[in-house]
């Protein structure tokens, strides 16, 4: 049987964290391709993960358009729009961090990542404020004194707000994970792990962050915008 030797039989037994190449790979390129593909595959699982919730939303919106429009209009549009902008800004700084990674500008990476994290936290802060507002306005389906209590709309409006809390909550959870990832990358960068040859983790963290942004790009119109002008 024909065999060929590879260059890494020798040293790879004990992996050094800073040395990029792991033992199962032959080349750096193979490793990078694998990681990137892995992340993309992970992202499609995320598409379908949110997809299930989007299906629920779509079905109910099409069954109860009027109630959903009414419930929509009770969400705080200026805040939602601001938050969208915050998230888009964070995506921008994220991509700048990746760019800095490509160019090997370690300081720039760290600065951009910290700004990204800041925007991420700002988003979560604003979200938290919004949720509190909902609590105060009795928009939370599970609590007593739901604002439409007693009217025949309450059921379907509760479904709207249930989806609102479940989906924005899920999204917020992803943001929290994202912030954790950023912290890790910042730490690694400060350790000097990355170089123009090896910055895949930054790249991949970027993909994740942008994806979370994408989800919001759709959550925003679905919950805040469509039919919010409808008569109440």
């Amino acid at each position, binding site marked *: 049987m024909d065999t060929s030797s590879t260059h890494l039989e020798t040293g790879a037994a004990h992996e050094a964290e800073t040395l990029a190449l792991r033992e199962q790979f032959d*080349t750096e*390129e*193979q490793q*990078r*391709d694998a990681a*990137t*593909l892995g992340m*993309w*595959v992970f*992202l*499609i699982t995320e*598409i*379908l993960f949110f*997809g*299930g919730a*989007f*299906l629920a939303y*779509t*079905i109910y919106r*099409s*069954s109860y358009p009027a109630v959903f429009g009414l419930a929509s209009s009770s969400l705080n*549009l200026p805040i*939602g*729009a601001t938050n*969208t*902008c915050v998230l*888009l*800004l964070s*995506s*921008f700084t*994220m*991509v*700048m961090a990746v*760019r800095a990674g*490509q*160019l090997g500008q370690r300081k720039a990476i760290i600065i951009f990542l910290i700004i990204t994290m800041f925007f991420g936290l700002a988003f979560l802060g604003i979200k938290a404020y919004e949720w509190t507002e909902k609590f105060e306005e009795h928009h939370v389906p599970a609590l007593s004194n739901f604002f439409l209590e007693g009217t025949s709309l309450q059921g379907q409006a509760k479904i709207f707000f249930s989806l609102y809390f479940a989906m924005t909550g899920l999204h917020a959870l992803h943001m929290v994970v994202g912030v954790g990832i950023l912290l890790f990358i910042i730490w690694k960068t400060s350790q000097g792990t990355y170089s123009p040859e090896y910055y*895949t983790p930054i*790249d991949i963290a*970027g*993909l994740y962050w*942008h*994806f979370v*942004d*994408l989800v919001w*790009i*759709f959550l*925003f*119109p*679905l919950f*805040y*915008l*469509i*039919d*919010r*002008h409808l008569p109440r």
Partner: protein
Amino acid sequence: MNQHGEPSHHVDSVRTYVGVLIALLIATIVTALVATLDLGPFNIIVALGIACVKMMLVVLFFMHVRYSTLLTRLVMIGGLMWLAILLLLSFVDFGTRGWIGVPGK
């Protein structure tokens, strides 16, 4: 089968990114303003249309799909297609309920 395209080694200029950001922000403001108008059935179309444009900007530029391999694109399109299957075939049910005029059929 390693691709030699080295997709992620392509460095975009800062100007490109700033341009994309500005486009995204403008789109956000536009869609928020339009939402206060009554466009009838076009409300949904406009809101989701703008969202799709924003998605394309993020995917192509920020996520570098512009330079990515065929495989990456396939993966992404595949994911969206599967989402479409989920939505479409579910609507075959929810969209045709009551067509024959018998409750529950």
